[in-house]
């Protein structure tokens, strides 16, 4: 770059910067009008100036950008986190509901009168007899002790003088034979007898097995009333047997 071009360049820049006036300005404008290379140089200077302006602007925005990202990220992150927590909680709650629902549905569908009955039923065991007692044993009791329930029913003759014990054992035999209907009738009879004689003999047992028979006979509503009565009475012999699970299962049977 010799001195004259350098001078020209400087003048051109001054012109671009708006630092020329009067004759100097007019001269350069005349030259620009006829000299394409000078035009190109002016164009190039303008581009350079433009690059600087953009750089300055970018620097300015960049400083604010960092600041704003911190400002906007905090609430955004917070709500994001909050939203995420809510979303996860919802998902967790939904899963729990789904699982619980599944468990409930499974137990609801799998619960059946037969299952509830058999998972709660234990055969009634008579106390062991001493040798001398043999002659007092009725034929019903004898057959029951031998676990010959058909024989026990055959030996059973219902009449007003039939003992509470025989009635009860006949009822138990019906249960063992799967005849809930007749078992129910006989348990009711035992309870009536107890009522009449102001006795409690085999009362608790009858109530419990009656409830189980109701379950098996698909009368969960009646069974439930009886079960609640037993559960509410802490002195009842079978109080401990009535679990919340049993109550729940019977409730489910009600809705089936």
């Amino acid at each position, binding site marked *: 770059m010799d001195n004259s071009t350098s001078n020209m360049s400087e003048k051109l820049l001054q012109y671009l910067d708006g630092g020329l006036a009067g004759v100097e300005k007019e001269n350069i404008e005349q030259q620009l009008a006829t000299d394409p290379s000078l035009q190109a140089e002016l164009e190039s200077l303008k*581009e350079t100036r433009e690059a600087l302006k953009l750089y300055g602007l970018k620097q300015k925005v960049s400083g604010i950008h960092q600041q704003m990202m911190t400002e906007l990220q905090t609430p955004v992150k917070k709500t994001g986190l909050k939203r995420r927590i809510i979303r996860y909680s919802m998902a967790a709650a939904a899963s729990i509901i789904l699982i619980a629902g599944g468990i409930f549905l499974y137990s609801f569908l799998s619960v059946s009168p037969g299952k509830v009955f058999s998972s709660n039923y234990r055969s009634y065991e008579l106390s062991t007899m001493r040798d001398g007692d043999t002659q007092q044993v009725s034929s019903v009791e004898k057959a029951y002790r031998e676990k010959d329930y058909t024989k026990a029913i055959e030996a059973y003759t219902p009449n007003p003088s039939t003992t509470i014990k025989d009635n009860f054992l006949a009822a138990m035999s019906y249960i063992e034979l799967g005849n809930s209907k007749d078992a129910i009738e006989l348990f009711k009879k035992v309870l009536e007898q107890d009522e009449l004689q102001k006795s409690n003999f085999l009362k608790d047992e009858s109530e419990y097995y009656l409830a189980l028979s109701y379950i098996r006979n698909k009368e969960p509503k009646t069974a439930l009333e009886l079960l609640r009565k037993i559960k509410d009475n802490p002195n009842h012999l079978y109080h401990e047997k009535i679990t919340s699970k049993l109550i729940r299962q019977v409730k489910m049977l009600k809705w089936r």
Partner: protein
Amino acid sequence: MEVIRNLPDQELVENLQTGKRMDETIKAIYRNHFESLGWYIMNNSGTRQDAEDVFQEVVVTFIDLVQKNKFRGESTVKTFLYSLNRHAWLNELKKRGRALAREEKYEKGKEQAEPDAGHLIADREGRSEIMKLVGSLGETCKKILLLFYYENLSMKEILKSMHYENEQVVRNKKYKCLKQLEQMLNEKPHLKSTLKSLLNG
């Protein structure tokens, strides 16, 4: 500092043109538009970092266009920013080679309804290369040039802040620095079109 939230478009544009309350105005743009524009990118296979980078670019481009009187208020600021943002991101996706065909198709259908801002924000890569070149200038050069061409300070004002003997020294320094940058830019002929579009829009 005052926090401007609901800045009417007209006032916002005026502030950017005159440089009045520049910081608060830029902040208002961030507060009002970053979330929805960023959301668009993050919902179109972008990360939050992508959203931030593109938004910064959008803001720079927008201010530049406003200052060159190229934003004429034919659409709202919001629509205009959205359009810049969308184009910048679609270009970026194309560059990354994973533009979604569905997205492109959808966008094509929308083209007429919005101002065509495509060319205004094109060539992010070229711009970023130019920014790097300017950034690589010596600190003194950068300072003088920015004070003069960006901050629009007079030679007298620059002289005060730079401790030079006299204005002529500053003027000479500024001339040399600008020439240096011009040469650096001219050494990269592929940046010519980017520079031209910067200048002429």
